[in-house]
């Protein structure tokens, strides 16, 4: 033996690269491959990819919207006017104060095929030669726009959406009649720059020049015509001052002004809604993934207790232990984060590839560094939060257990500095989530909900352990084993309950969302719906129209109501620009609304406040209003709304409030005037008609043959279009939510895998003692059924609450509780958990007894 040195310095040796030594040990452990870390890596990849994907896609949509804003608006500024359009003075001002001014007009009309007797509703659009001001048209076959629309030998040209060709059996080169005008189809519209792809429309597009538009004879008093004046500003001119000058020139004008910020608000709403939903998906994947990470690390370290104890016997300090396994976990986490960033960063490209035609605006495929940085930080913080405690506990594993061959993991809190570090990382994660989201309301609720849920599951786990410990000792050894597995020291009951709970909550949430979305689709088809709406019936055509309906066998007039257009100007005397109201009423406040009048309440009306006026009412203007809108506007009986109807302001007092079921397909108006206010204004009529299948085509043909200006909307077509739209939305929701389902299943698998080693040992010992396979599997099944069933109850509550929140606040739809979906999902989730473990235990039963005992 070498002589003892003169002075023995027992101070720990520092400055010799403790991290280098720890890295050396970590590298040796990592050589063994990813055994025990597959689920860890998968959870990190999924969580980071979700956040990175959500962020990149949102940025890509915003960039796409910004790049296409001018093309989508079709102008620097657009002024929308209904009915008769701008006055001569207004038009002159617009023309004199812009570099270029074009007029675009839109109207619903009927198009009749000359080669067959077919006809269909179209969205007729009239344009000026300078259209489009921004963006580019794509026609098939390719040709200049002017060539497509020019008049040749008296025949005007038109562009149509491809769907129109199939609908009425025509091709390019055929002629159709619109109103009084014969038009030749010169090409199909592949891309219309100012039209949102996939948006809901009643009919295919038919585009002509404004001259041709006028020649159709469909521009009549009261027609539901929309004028859009599109302005390209002069060089150096900016929007705000220009709009202010316009407002000063024509105060109180009955128009709406749109600039680039307002380009296609429906698209912005779509991007917004999508962003909220995807943010929730990303955060859910991250939280669920975090639970999976915690399980995986705890499980891995519990398998390393002997190694850690051995290292301590050999002189490794707690810090060496911590650093070694911190580095191991850290390196794998960084690799997982890198993979997640690559996958997430590619999301915009994947979205374009998969859903190009269904997207209202194409996301701009590019590299967006900020969302990736944020996702990486999320990944690092999540890893730190969910691994610090297991790592901190590992450093305190008692090495003395090696002398008893029973090294047990440490329970209880780790040293305070690790508790504080975890709390700090958690605070940073929450702060980052709140700082980087645009949807603070939803993020806050999600974080609160997630925290409460996880704590609730932890409490349930403790209750299960306490309850099981207090049970009278069962006589059956298998049952006793099952119950004692819940309470034994070091049992990962809390981890398993939180994993099962988190996973089942996600599955229940997605299941309820799915059934509610499906219900949205199926509920669009009411039991009784009219066959047609006929719109743009002129007042002098009403009598003849009703006679045709009456004379058509199998046809029945359900409703006919006058229809005027007006724009809300004042709420209780305050202009709508300054009034405060619930944003959900924006659709009513902004833009033109349909108005009608009636002496008697329409059939099926439900008055919930106030009273309907007498049939011979002759008092000041009065209205009956939709009760929901009244609530959202913060008004009630006795308050006033002022509408601008064709330049005339009418202030009406609210005399009654009605509940309106907008899902019913019937002629409904949010605002009904009492007699006396609107009769003299230019108006058209809208009628709902029921027709037997035999009478349907005949009625359609007869009415549209007699009245070129009356458009027929087949409700069946509308329902199909809406159903298709909802199906696409439901598919997108399911696809996005599948990320969380995958995360949930991974965590379930991880929770089951966590106990695998112990199950192998138990199985082997029981086998040695004479237990059959059924006995062994029975113990496991009982244990996990107890855990799963109790946890499933709480998960059902959590999932139900989450699905309500998403359906009501994010999708702004109705929510219905479906007990069957919840029960089936919860039971299936528990069954999957038990099956996964069953498979593992069955495998364990196949292990060679002596090889296991020798290892132990």
């Amino acid at each position, binding site marked *: 033996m070498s002589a003892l040195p003169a002075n023995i310095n027992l101070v*720990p040796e520092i400055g010799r690269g403790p991290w280098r030594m720890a890295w050396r040990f970590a590298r040796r452990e990592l050589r063994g491959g990813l055994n025990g870390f597959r689920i860890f890596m998968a959870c990190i990849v999924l969580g980071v990819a979700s956040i990175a994907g959500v962020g990149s896609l949102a940025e890509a949509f915003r960039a796409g919207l910004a790049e296409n804003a001018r093309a989508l608006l079709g102008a620097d500024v657009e002024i929308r006017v209904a009915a008769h359009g701008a006055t001569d003075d207004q038009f002159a001002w617009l023309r004199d104060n812009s570099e270029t001014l074009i007029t675009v007009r839109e109207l619903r009309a009927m198009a009749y095929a000359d080669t067959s007797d077919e006809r269909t509703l179209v969205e007729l659009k009239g344009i000026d030669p300078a259209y489009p001001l921004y963006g580019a048209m794509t026609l098939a076959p390719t040709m200049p726009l002017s060539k497509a629309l020019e008049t040749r030998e008296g025949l005007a040209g038109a562009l149509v959406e491809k769907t129109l060709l199939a609908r009425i059996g025509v091709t390019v080169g055929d002629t159709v009649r619109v109103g009084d005008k014969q038009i030749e189809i010169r090409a199909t519209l592949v891309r219309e720059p100012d039209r949102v792809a996939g948006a809901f429309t009643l009919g295919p597009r038919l585009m002509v020049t404004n001259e041709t538009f006028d020649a159709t004879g469909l521009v009549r008093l009261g027609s539901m015509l929309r004028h859009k004046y599109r302005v390209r500003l002069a060089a150096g001119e900016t929007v705000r001052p220009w709009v202010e000058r316009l407002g000063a020139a024509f105060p109180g004008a009955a128009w709406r002004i749109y600039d680039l910020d307002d380009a296609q608000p429906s698209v912005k709403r779509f991007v917004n809604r999508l962003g909220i939903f995807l943010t929730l998906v990303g955060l859910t994947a991250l939280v669920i993934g975090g639970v999976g990470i915690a399980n995986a690390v705890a499980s891995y370290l519990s398998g390393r207790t002997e190694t850690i104890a051995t290292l301590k016997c*050999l*002189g490794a300090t707690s810090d060496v232990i911590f650093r070694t396994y911190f580095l191991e976990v850290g390196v794998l986490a960084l690799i997982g984060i890198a993979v997640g960033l690559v996958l997430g960063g590619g999301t915009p490209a994947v979205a374009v590839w998969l859903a190009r035609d269904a997207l209202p605006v194409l996301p701009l495929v590019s590299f967006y560094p900020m969302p990736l940085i944020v996702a990486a930080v999320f990944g690092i913080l999540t890893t730190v939060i969910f691994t610090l405690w297991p790592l901190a506990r590992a450093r305190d594993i008692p090495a003395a257990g090696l002398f008893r061959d029973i090294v047990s993991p440490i329970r209880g809190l780790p040293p305070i500095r690790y508790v504080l570090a975890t709390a700090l990382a958690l605070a940073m994660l929450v702060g980052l989530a709140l700082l980087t989201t645009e949807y603070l309301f939803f993020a806050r609720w999600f974080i609160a909900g997630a925290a409460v849920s996880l704590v609730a599951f932890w409490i349930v786990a403790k209750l299960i352990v306490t309850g099981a410990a207090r049970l009278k000792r069962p006589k059956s050894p298998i049952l006793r084993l099952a119950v004692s597995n819940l309470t034994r020291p070091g049992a990962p009951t809390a981890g398993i309950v939180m994993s099962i709970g988190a996973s089942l909550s996600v599955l229940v949430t997605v299941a309820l969302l799915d059934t509610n979305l499906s219900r949205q689709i199926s509920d669009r088809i009411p039991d009784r719906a009219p066959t047609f709406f006929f719109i743009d019936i002129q007042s002098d055509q009403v009598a003849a129209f009703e006679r045709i309906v009456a004379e058509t066998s199998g046809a029945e007039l359900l409703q006919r109501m006058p229809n005027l257009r007006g724009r809300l100007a004042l709420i209780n005397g305050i202009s709508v620009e300054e009034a405060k109201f619930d944003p959900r009423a924006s659709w009513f406040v902004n833009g033109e609304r349909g108005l009608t009048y009636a002496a008697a309440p329409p059939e099926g009306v439900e008055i919930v406040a106030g009273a309907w006026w007498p049939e011979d009412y002759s008092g000041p203007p009065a209205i009956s209003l939709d009760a929901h809108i009244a609530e959202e506007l913060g008004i009630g009986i006795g308050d006033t709304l002022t509408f601008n109807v064709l330049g005339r302001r009418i202030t009406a007092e609210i005399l009654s409030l009605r509940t309106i079921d907008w899902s019913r397909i019937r002629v409904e108006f949010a605002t009904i005037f009492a007699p006396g206010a609107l009769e003299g204004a230019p108006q058209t009529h809208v009628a709902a008609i029921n027709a037997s299948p035999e009478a349907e085509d005949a009625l359609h043909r007869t009415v549209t043959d007699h009245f070129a200006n009356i458009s027929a909307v087949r409700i069946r077509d509308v329902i199909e279009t809406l159903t298709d739209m909802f199906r696409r939305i439901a598919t997108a929701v399911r696809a996005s939510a599948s990320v969380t389902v995958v995360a949930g299943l991974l965590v379930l698998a991880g929770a089951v895998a966590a106990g695998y080693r112990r199950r192998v040992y138990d199985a082997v010992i029981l086998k040695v003692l004479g237990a059959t396979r059924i006995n062994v599997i029975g113990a496991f099944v009982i244990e996990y059924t107890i855990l799963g069933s109790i946890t499933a109850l709480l998960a059902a509550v959590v999932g139900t609450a989450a699905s309500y929140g998403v359906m009501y606040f994010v999708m702004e739809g109705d929510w219905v509780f479906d007990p069957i979906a919840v029960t089936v999902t919860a039971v299936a989730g528990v069954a999957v958990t038990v099956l996964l473990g069953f498979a593992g235990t069955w495998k364990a039963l196949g292990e060679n007894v002596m090889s296991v005992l020798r290892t132990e």
Partner: protein
Amino acid sequence: MPEPVELDLSVAQLEPMVLLEDVHLTLESRAGEVNILRGIDLAIEKGESVGVVGPSGSGKSTMLAVTAGLERTSTGRVVVAGTAYDGLTEDGLALFRRHHIGIVFQAFHLIPAMTALENVAVPLELSGIEDAIERAAAGLSAVALADRLDHYPAQLSGGEQQRVALARAFATEPALILADEPTGNLDMATGRQIIDLMFEIRAHENSTLLLITHDPAVADRCDRVIHLNDGRITIPADEAVAAGT
């Protein structure tokens, strides 16, 4: 951080290598207190080999763990190589073990993710020794495993694993070797080889040895044997024989 301890060598050279004074160890359990060690008094001189025998549950392994600084005593004093344990933190004890104690277990307890060479190198690396790998290779050669350097524990037989464990225990030339039934998991022939090897290296290094064994033949090879029963050292075995009890 523990304070550096300056030792007076002259005193250190006279002190026993291991000194246990009235050591008690009581553990709490759900069933109540369990007295594992009930007043152990033991002094082992430098270079001495002491065998520990006794029935199962007598506290032999616990006494070894206390000596290694892996278990804290409830009362009493433990001094090894002139260092009193009660002044040291857990990390301080770990640091002390690096330089002064080698442990051989019945179950070998090699690190499965490391090769034989790396297993032996660990205590050298922990001690910050630069040529740890070379020294480890030399250690394995000394136990006739030069051709097994890159083998993992799972690829070694029981005897080979224990030889690796021996090489690891002696790698830093510790003053004290603690062995807990090192042949318990081996067949007789292999066990004898291991014991021979252990005593050979011990003699070469002049290490102090505290060895738990059930094998009387192994115990006889020690300088003396103590008998542990129910947490107490009863009369040393050779004295019991001499007294005819």
